[in-house]
């Protein structure tokens, strides 16, 4: 157990080190094969190890590596329970497929070996994140995935846009990390430990006041919002699409961005004590879901549609975990990993076939040219639109059901989620129609063609998962919920309604999806409408949030820096330094006359001192 669990991490780590050192020499496609085999190996080990959990309720286990920070009571320790097992399976499973796909997608790229070493680095980091048994190791993984995300976004660093996007992602994530670090400090100050067991058991025993729990939970939310691209820290994710498409699929859709959801689910014991913070999580999620969905409607770049769609779906997950439906949130995380990775890989296949074109207005009619890509993406489209029995329907419906069941103001949130579902169906249909149907609008010289087998096989596998992935947790047979029960047994879980209400809610959300699809089909069926009204431009530019941030934060920072550099530094700091200098000089000038240069004056001073000392002794009444 010890070794095999460690191997899950060590395999991709070894692959990464090997490719760092010899990636160029191994060359193409050897480097890709090595990296893929490493991840597939991890996946197979994870499957074997997870069998205990699937068959019965195998106990959660820990593997201690070494004592790391004794002052904080922190050990480098892994935790293997149902939640981390599920995350590991998703990460390595989807990761394997995307590695495989990348061998085809990155063919001929000069940085082939480097790309796969980064991918393996990412898998390693993500596994450290999900397998950590304390907040410190979790944070290490958290930062490492941030690093690999940065490296992969700016993978084509010769392009200034890509380099800038990488920096943007890094900086925005730093903002979130501040919150995370502060939360860790608070946790340590309360519990004197960073270990999961100590903290959660302590929280369960009531060692945490509501105020403190709320503070910790809100700070954790800041960190999660940074990593999972929620309002207001979502701005880096659309730009992250500058990276290679498999990266977008793996990191910025399927796995890394869900780290925030995982973290909230993992720390459910804390959020349970802070209902206000939990509600804040749900509200942030709902607002993000709606907000990003409206922006996605007006995007022309196929990958940006998917990016905003990812933000929106992450909002769903936050809504779920905020409503204490951790199973539902993690369930949606899983299904979303399948169909969103599929969508991204499909988009990558389209871009590949279109020789790098990303503007949907220059596509159209690709269904016949790329049948496999079209068929698999159509499944993902139905899945994300919430059409049963595809995967997205079950998970999305469960989240909406839980939120509705909470009653009161939560039902407003349910309404938001429903509108988002409608919008989601609309913009996904728009994307499908602009890409695959209608008249070809290709640029001259573009010869669309189906992608090689290496790329379509992962599509097909993911399509299969998108069809059946939802069946693991239906209202009829809640396998996943039972599977995750041991992890959340200490936490009070919210549940979806059952009986006729469940049917009504499901019908409503399916209706929303169908309305969205239908509206989009009606609008884009025959022609591509001109979309350049004021509203379209506002949405297309993401409400100009980037410009606002640039003006407020970057501009404000620049103003502040200017003030510091040219006012405060020149007048204040330099003034103080020069003031001290001239004061010293002046004081020296005043004291100069004391140094007459006459030895006898100095002698006089010595005798005066002696007399003074003697007088002092005598005044004290004797020697």
């Amino acid at each position, binding site marked *: 157990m010890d070794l095999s669990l460690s191997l899950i991490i060590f395999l991709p780590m070894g692959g990464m080190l090997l490719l760092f050192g010899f990636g160029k020499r191994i060359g193409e496609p050897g480097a890709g094969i090595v990296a893929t085999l490493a991840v597939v190996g991890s996946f197979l080990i994870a499957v074997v190890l997870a069998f205990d959990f699937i068959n019965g309720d195998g106990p959660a286990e820990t593997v201690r590596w070494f004592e790391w920070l004794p002052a904080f009571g922190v050990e480098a320790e892994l935790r293997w329970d149902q939640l981390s097992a599920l995350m590991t399976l998703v990460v390595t499973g989807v990761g394997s497929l995307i590695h495989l796909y990348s061998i085809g997608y990155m063919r001929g790229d000069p940085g082939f070996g480097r790309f796969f070493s980064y991918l393996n680095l990412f898998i390693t980091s993500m596994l450290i994140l999900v397998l950590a048994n304390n907040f410190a190791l979790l944070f290490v993984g958290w930062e490492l995935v941030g690093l690999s995300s940065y490296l992969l976004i700016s993978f084509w660093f010769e392009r200034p846009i890509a380099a800038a996007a990488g920096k943007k992602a890094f900086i925005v994530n730093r903002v979130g990390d501040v919150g995370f670090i502060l939360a860790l400090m608070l946790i340590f100050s309360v519990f004197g430990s960073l270990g999961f067991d100590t903290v959660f058991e302590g929280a369960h025993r009531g060692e945490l006041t509501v105020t403190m729990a709320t503070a910790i939970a809100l700070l954790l939310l800041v960190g999660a919002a940074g990593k999972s691209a929620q309002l207001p820290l979502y701005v880096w994710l659309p730009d992250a699409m500058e990276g290679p498409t498999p990266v977008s699929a793996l990191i910025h859709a399927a796995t890394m961005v869900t780290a925030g959801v995982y973290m909230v689910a993992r720390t459910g014991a804390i959020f349970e004590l802070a209902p206000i913070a939990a509600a804040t999580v749900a509200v942030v999620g709902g607002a993000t879901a709606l907000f990003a969905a409206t922006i996605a409607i007006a995007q022309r770049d196929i990958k940006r549609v998917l990016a905003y769609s990812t933000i929106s779906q992450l909002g769903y997950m936050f809504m779920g975990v905020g409503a204490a439906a951790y199973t539902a949130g993690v369930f949606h995380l899983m299904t979303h990993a399948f169909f969103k990775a599929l969508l991204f890989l499909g988009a990558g296949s389209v871009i590949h076939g279109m020789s790098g074109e990303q503007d949907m207005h220059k596509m159209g009619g690709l269904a016949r040219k790329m049948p496999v890509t079209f068929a698999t993406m159509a499944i993902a489209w139905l899945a994300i639109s919430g059409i049963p029995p595809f995967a997205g329907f079950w998970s999305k419906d469960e989240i909406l059901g839980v939120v509705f069941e909470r009653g009161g103001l939560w039902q407003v949130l349910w309404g938001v989620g429903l509108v988002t579902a409608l919008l989601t169906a609309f913009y996904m249909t728009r994307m499908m129609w602009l890409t695959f149907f209608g008249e070809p609008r290709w640029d001259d010289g573009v010869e669309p063609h189906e992608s090689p087998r290496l790329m379509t096989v992962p599509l097909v596998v993911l399509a299969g998962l998108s069809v059946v992935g939802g069946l693991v947790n239906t209202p009829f047979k809640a396998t996943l919920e039972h599977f995750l029960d041991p992890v959340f047994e200490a936490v009070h879980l919210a549940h979806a309604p059952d009986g006729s209400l469940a049917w009504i809610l499901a019908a409503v959300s399916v209706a929303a999806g169908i309305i969205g699809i239908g509206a989009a089909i009606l609008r884009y069926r025959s022609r591509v409408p001109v979309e350049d009204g004021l509203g379209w431009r506002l949405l297309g530019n993401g409400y100009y949030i980037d410009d606002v941030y640039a003006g407020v934060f970057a501009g404000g920072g620049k103003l502040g820096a200017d003030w510091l550099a040219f006012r405060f530094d020149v007048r204040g700091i330099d003034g103080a330094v020069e003031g001290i200098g001239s004061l010293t000089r002046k004081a020296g000038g005043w004291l100069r006359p004391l140094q*007459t*240069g*006459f030895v*006898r004056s100095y*002698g006089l001073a010595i005798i005066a001192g002696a007399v003074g000392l003697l007088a002092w002794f005598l005044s004290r009444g004797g020697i």
Partner: protein
Amino acid sequence: MAVTPGWYMALAAVLFIIGAGGMLLRRNALVMFMSIELMLNAVNLTFVAAGRELNVLEGQVAVFFVMVVAAAEVVVGLAIIIAVFRRRQTASVDELTQLRG
């Protein structure tokens, strides 16, 4: 009339004051140096007298060390005086005021 240590102390005080006066009033570096030696001798006398009064040897040991230090000081000091005299052709300290502030 028996001689008490106080007599020696008083004599030493007078010698010390004369030495101090010489140091403050004379300008010849050599004479100033001699004045300092005189002050050291006066203090030595008090050490010995006090040692006798208290019936301990430490007073004389202290005198021994003072003598060694004074000898070292005289050696270096006189060397400095000669070095200065070579350059300035004077032994008057009032002319050596280059370190004036």
